[in-house]
């Protein structure tokens, strides 16, 4: 048995180094840290839970099977998101699935399947009215995100959901910094336009 490891408090680079030494607990810790962000990114790209789970699984398998090739000068999360984005974009290109509905997977054939693949954004608020408004805004946001072009979607998700800097996004997606800024600004404009009706309704 190797000595006990306090993986929870280690930075990513150290956990990756332990994974490179063949510590299974380090592999599991990397999955624990990033399963939700990676799954969420892919889910919002492909809008199908089962498919997103398969693609997220492919992402982790690719990354963890080649963890010995990881170079410490890059952030592990950037590498992981890069693979996740590539996996999702490749899939979308193959299926030519550009925009889909938040109300269920486009592949769903039955009412149950549509319900099973639809979003339910849970938000906690003080009053029932606030909750209703928040849920409506949350759903509208998800619908607006879904209507964006895939490349805008991954940029805006990395910027505002994962909190990455423009430079990190450029490195992650292999895009010029100017292109990333343009994509994010256009995505914001489209989101604002898509959500205008909420302001008009409340005003």
């Amino acid at each position, binding site marked *: 048995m*190797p000595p006990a490891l306090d993986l929870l408090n280690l930075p990513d680079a150290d956990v990756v180094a332990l994974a490179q030494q063949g510590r299974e607990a380090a592999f599991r810790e990397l*999955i624990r840290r990033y399963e*939700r962000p990676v799954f969420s990114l892919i889910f919002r790209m492909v809008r199908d839970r089962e498919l997103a*789970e398969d693609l997220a699984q492919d992402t982790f398998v690719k990354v963890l099977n080649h963890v010995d090739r990881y170079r410490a000068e890059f952030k592990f999360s950037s590498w992981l998101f890069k693979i996740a984005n590539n996996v999702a974009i490749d899939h979308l290109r193959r299926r030519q699935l550009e925009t889909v509905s938040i109300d269920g997977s486009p592949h769903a054939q039955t009412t149950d399947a549509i319900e099973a693949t639809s979003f339910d954004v849970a938000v906690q608020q003080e009053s029932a009215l606030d909750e209703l408004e928040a849920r409506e805004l949350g759903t509208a946001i998800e619908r607006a995100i879904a209507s964006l072009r895939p490349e805008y979607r991954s940029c805006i998700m990395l910027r505002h959901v994962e909190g990455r800097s423009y430079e990190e996004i450029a490195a992650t997606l292999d895009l010029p910094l100017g292109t990333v800024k343009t994509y994010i600004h256009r995505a*914001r*404009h489209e989101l604002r336009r898509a959500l205008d009706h909420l*302001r008009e309704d409340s005003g």
Partner: protein
Amino acid sequence: MNHRHLLPDEIDLLLDNEVGFGVAPLKAHARECDECRVRLEDARLVLTSLEATPHFAPSHAFADRIMSQVPVFVPWHVTARDTVARWLPQSRTARITVAALATSAATVLTAAILWIATQTDVLVFASGAAGDEVRSLLLSGTHTLLAAVFGDQVSAMIQAAGTVGIVAALVGLGAAAAASIAGLRALALASSRRRA
């Protein structure tokens, strides 16, 4: 007040909290112009809502499914280090004692090896004797192995064929063993994938 309303890109500059030259007049305008202030607040609200979107969780078995496809390989040097670490005492004093003993043992062994190396005659005699012993052990072991695997009669035929026969028999045996191991491994992998 500057009467030109803010452009969408200028609103983005303010949203990103840019501090460069030219941002101060934009901020001043947003403070004084009701229309631009509302547009900026609306844009902030969209970003706040975006940042509040939740992470979704995959199913419970997600990590296990991934790990079933990731063979964890422990390099030999890590295994060796773990083994050494397991045997090393935890306290500092005990470790110093062990290090002192190990250094003393290494020094004595080095001195002994150096002394033996200087005794050329003894070395030649000892290596010759050891070589003979190893050769006879190998021959006897090979004969025993052939007799056990192929039976006495076939073993006698192989030995009659000389060195070529023995080598051919051993190579055939090795190939059969390797094929069996590969087959068993493929079966085990297929079984574990089916389980996953």
